[in-house]
């Protein structure tokens, strides 16, 4: 059942992005930025947390989960050391994703040439 929810949620988010892309002048860069902001905004009142427990991996794959993980890491830091912890813990959960993206991009760019 969780697979069906994953399929529907991830597909729904992608479809909204595609509809915005087709019907407005916004570029993919605008849309991904917008979705990250939406993801962190949904987490003010724990809404995205509930979606993640209900939907599972389907909610962690779209870029909205990036905003969710940023605010979540900030909250873990804040519970330990107050307001300054918000900045300390901000990248805790997304660090693995950003680090691996940078590392793999650099390594692959050493070995491969651009193809046209």
């Amino acid at each position: 059942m969780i697979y069906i929810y994953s399929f529907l949620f991830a597909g729904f988010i992608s479809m909204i992005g595609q509809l915005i892309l087709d019907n407005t002048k916004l570029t993919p860069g605008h849309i991904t930025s917008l979705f990250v902001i939406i993801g962190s905004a949904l987490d003010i009142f724990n809404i995205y947390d509930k979606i993640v427990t209900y939907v599972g991996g389907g909610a962690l794959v779209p870029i909205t989960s990036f905003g969710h993980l940023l605010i979540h890491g900030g909250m873990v830091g804040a519970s330990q050391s107050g307001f300054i912890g918000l900045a300390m813990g901000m990248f805790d959960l997304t660090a693995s994703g950003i680090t691996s993206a940078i590392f793999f991009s650099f390594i692959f760019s050493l070995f491969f040439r651009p193809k046209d």
Partner: protein
Amino acid sequence: MYIFSKIENNKNGDIMEKKLYQKLVMEHRPDEKRGQNAVIAFLIGGTVGVIGELLIEFYSYYLELSRADASIFMIITLIFLASLCTALGFFDKWVKFAKCGLIIPITGFAHSMTSAAIEYKKEGFVTGLGANMFKLAGTVILYGVVSAYIFGFIRLIVMGGA
């Protein structure tokens, strides 16, 4: 049309007004294509979501990880696959076909970084690769951090942490 609007001396009269051109474009744009794009994005995006859930189940079962750790492994795996496919050259065709179905999932983030890194490598490692790698991914990180900081502040004040 952006190029046309910059030209000032229109002697032959073959340069249209911007609004007129837009109207013509809108009339001749096929409508069914948009619906088709949305359906393709829905199917591909949903498939990537199911792959993510399958990977979480796989890692938590075979490597005996907690669900939180398994989801981090899943994100790293997807980033690795997207970077590799971009470097091998066939991810661009998939993105052209699926559009937001692959841009909105975390694969789009890795794709933008790897393609920028490979594209600008010829301009040098510092001024080319280093300066241009975050051109697209940088906006995601910037607006993510700014919004998470503001909303985190609100959440701390309203809900008192937790």
